[in-house]
């Protein structure tokens, strides 16, 4: 079977790949394009470790087919830092020790980035509601919430 040719934009750069119909976008990003920041926790939409922003929507890449990415824009955790300079969310996750094993972290960072783009000054309740699709089995959520609040205030210039 010939591969499906897909052309997309990933973290601002043009990207083209070939894939099988049954490959998920998560598999394509990790295995064909080497973007290992996108994690597979469950493969069934439950954990959010595979979160990406597709056009302007935060989604689980484990439930999207690679072929569906044709003509779309993708943002992953790899696009967050500018060279050596961490994104404020990444910086605050480090400062607040909001990670332990780290497998959930890229998903949380991308989900938090999407949340703050839509709501730059969220309440704690709104952060918890906005990050409900991301599960963390080691750190617990309090430090993550605090890191997001702190990053939000840096990003607002407050």
């Amino acid at each position, binding site marked *: *079977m010939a591969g*499906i040719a897909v052309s997309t934009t990933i973290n601002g750069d043009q990207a083209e790949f070939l894939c099988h*119909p*049954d490959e*998920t976008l998560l598999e394509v990003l990790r295995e064909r394009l080497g973007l290992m920041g996108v994690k597979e926790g469950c*493969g*069934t*939409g*439950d954990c*959010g470790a595979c*979160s990406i922003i597709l056009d302007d*929507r*935060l*989604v*689980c890449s*484990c*439930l*999207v*087919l690679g*072929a*569906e990415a*044709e003509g779309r824009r993708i943002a992953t955790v790899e696009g967050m830092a500018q060279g050596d300079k961490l994104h404020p969310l990444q910086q605050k996750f480090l400062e607040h020790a909001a990670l332990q094993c780290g497998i959930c972290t890229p998903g949380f960072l991308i*989900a938090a980035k*999407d*949340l703050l783009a839509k709501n730059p000054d969220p309440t704690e*309740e*709104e952060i*918890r*509601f*906005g990050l*409900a*699709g*991301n599960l963390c089995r080691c750190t617990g959520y309090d430090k993550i919430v605090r890191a997001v609040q702190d990053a939000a205030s840096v990003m607002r210039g407050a």
Partner: protein
Amino acid sequence: MKRFTYTRAETVADAVAILADRPQAQFLAGGTNLVDLMKYDVERPDAIIDINSLPLKEIEELPDGGLRIGALASNSAVAYNAQIQARFPLLASAILAGASPQLRNAATTGGNLLQRTRCSYFYDPSTPCNKREPGSGCAAIGGLTRMHAILGASDKCIAVHPSDMCVALAALDATVEVVGPDSARDIAFGDFHRLPGDEPQRDNTLARDELVTGIRLEANRFAGHHTYLKLRDRLSYAFALVSVAAAMEIADGRIVDLRIALGGVAHRPWRDPLVEAEYAGAPAEDVTFQRVADRLLFEAKGLGGNDFKILLARKAIVRALRQAASGRPQSQTLKAIQ
């Protein structure tokens, strides 16, 4: 996953024609249910027809004051739409009670209607399941029944429909618009999902060759008195054990018009318009709400593991009717039950 071909449909006619040609094909919308079930080998299409390019994403006002929601409008787009929040807040609330931001962003209106049960035996191809494999038996009967039906079950299947959105659409008397190879038709929401009976493999009355194109909502006067109350094993990101969509119109302390639908209790959103009609004119107070609950649950039957749902449903109905009557709907972000 079984191997399949991938085709993108560009028009509604195109999508329906491709489906008519391929008896094992399935439409792909948000993929949040279909791709999941394909990974478990529960759904085994030989062809995927991606319908995401079809022009069915609009939410538009109708001349008669109603609203039409395209089948591809995402659950998030519907829940955060200003018209829906102002005029059909029950629908927005029910959607926000379900899943997660990621899933609501991907999930579509049509896909939500057609999502399959979360019965864990249905998900496990090593167990008998009449819904997955007609005639093979039902592993849930005599198995773990915590998540299963207390109303309308059959001796072939005791699964429940998992949607939150559909419970609100049932209460709001929505209309489902569908298109087949030769014609289009409307299906009243109450006729869309079915009870399992002898054919649990059929979740609904959509024909095999039809596409859902949208949902219509009629104008109503429920925006001031409504609630969606969802009870589950944890406060977020879990399917309902029992949920209640309630809406009413009240004048001088009396119910003028009542709507109530239950989720998590049956193979389809559970509603009884005769009971609703009977309580028009009754005082909007606890005694009425308890009677409504008793009437709706009169035929409820537990199977052991889900016996608790009968009392839970009774209390949830009374609580939801109280929330609706007082004009204080359940908050979906601050999760404490009000």
